């Protein structure tokens, strides 16, 4: 869900570009076509700014909310190495949230406004975190396969047109490599461990497979609107393309461990090079993203709890003479 753009199919393209200076627009688009980045103070169409704020903000929220299902297992992590690594991973997620909010702030929306919109449900975050991490096996699957999905998104979007977002993503990608390795290591130890451990991780994989298939978003229908977003390098690849990339890289690795995936149709068509699978339930996706998932309410309640508990610290040190500032880059 995060790193994806929202296209209002009902809004005609004409309206989106209405009132934009055609000369400036042409210059802006030429810059992007040349492969140059757009920086914060550059002229940009309203719709570009709007889509980017939305996309980057949602990505930031996903990191912060994602810290919750994984963070719950820090106090129960087995052994020093896993405990320290999980702490560092979750800490990184908070750090990534910080980096992403900073990128979105360059576009003129304050961090306070973004956090408020998260808590009151106006802004969304990756749907996958509306499910609970029920066992230690869940954390292993999340750390490996959800992070894998995220990395594919991030590497793709890092080639986008907005400078601050690209720079944030580069930094994030370099830290994510540890997350992926940690996650994979975890799954391997469980899958190759005692029968109980193997059961733990297989069970987690069974429960998480649908959210994993949902991760890159519903199949997108190419419209004139998506075409503009692709021209502006806001949308870099289709959801299906990223899902295919994920399946291609990770399903063989899952099967390497003798783990099973709960989709009898899942196979790579060697002729087309594409993976075939049972289409996941997109109605469930819609229901969950609109608030009916097992953890939606709890996630936002916890965020509200955290912000309310910390308010005294923030307000005590807020000075009367401080001025709202926008980061430079």
């Amino acid at each position, binding site marked *: 869900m995060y790193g994806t753009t929202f296209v209002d199919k009902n809004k005609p393209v004409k309206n989106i570009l209405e009132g934009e200076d055609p000369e400036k627009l042409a210059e802006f688009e030429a810059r992007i076509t040349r492969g140059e980045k757009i*920086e914060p*103070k*550059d002229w940009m169409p309203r719709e570009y700014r709007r889509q980017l704020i939305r996309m980057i903000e949602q990505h930031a929220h996903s990191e912060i909310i994602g810290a*919750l*299902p994984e*963070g*719950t297992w820090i*106090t*129960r992590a087995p052994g020093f190495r896993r405990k320290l690594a999980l702490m560092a991973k979750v*800490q*990184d997620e908070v*750090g990534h949230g*910080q*980096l992403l909010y*900073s990128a979105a*702030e360059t576009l003129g929306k*304050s*961090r*306070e406004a973004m*956090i*408020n919109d998260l*808590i*009151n449900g106006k802004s969304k975050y990756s749907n996958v975190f509306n499910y*609970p*991490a*029920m066992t230690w096996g869940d954390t292993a699957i999340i750390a490996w396969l959800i992070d894998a999905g995220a990395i594919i998104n991030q590497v793709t979007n890092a080639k986008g047109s907005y400078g601050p977002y690209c720079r*944030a993503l580069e*930094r994030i990608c370099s*830290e994510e490599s540890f997350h992926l390795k940690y996650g994979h290591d975890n799954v391997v130890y469980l899958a190759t461990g005692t029968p109980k451990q193997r059961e733990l991780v297989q069970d987690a994989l069974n429960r998480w497979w649908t959210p994993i298939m949902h991760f890159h978003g519903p199949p997108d229908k190419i419209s004139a609107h998506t075409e503009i977003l692709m021209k502006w390098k806001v949308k870099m690849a289709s959801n299906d393309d990223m899902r295919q990339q994920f399946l291609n890289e990770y399903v063989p690795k899952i099967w390497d461990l003798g783990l099973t995936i709960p989709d009898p149709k899942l196979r790579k068509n060697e002729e087309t090079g594409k993976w075939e699978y049972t289409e996941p339930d997109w109605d469930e996706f819609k229901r969950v993203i609109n608030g009916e998932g097992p953890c939606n*309410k*709890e996630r*936002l*309640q*916890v965020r*509200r*709890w955290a*912000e*309310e508990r910390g*308010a005294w610290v*923030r*307000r005590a*040190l*807020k*000075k009367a003479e*401080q*001025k*709202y*500032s*926008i*980061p*430079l*880059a």
Partner: protein
Amino acid sequence: MKSFDPRVNRMELPSNDDGKEVLESEENWETYEVFHQKKRGDQHIHVGIVHAANPEMALILAKESFGRRRQTANIWVVKSSLVYPTDYENQDMFETTPEKTYREASDYYCMDRIRKYQKEHGISDRKDERRKNKEAEEK
């Protein structure tokens, strides 16, 4: 309702259904640009921002935001409002810079001129000499 998260079960969760805006404006203070030096002798490089209430806090926070996962010798913080940038609208003032090759070492080549003069004035070419000596030794 019991949560899968033991931390959550220790919290008294607010209902969060009043649509209230939880954060007031500027509660996250101001931003400071952070510059990171990897090793002594390196340049400080701009790496991002921290939100902080004052410079002392900005340094303490920047250490972990930007120094925890990379080698670090030193960090600077500067209030975002104190950084003076050039205007991207004036990026064109930098445009002809790469054309001024008279400032580039690669723009200088005069071997041909040396060889011509050597030929005309019977000055031996050192490279040729070395080559001839080497061939003689090898025989």
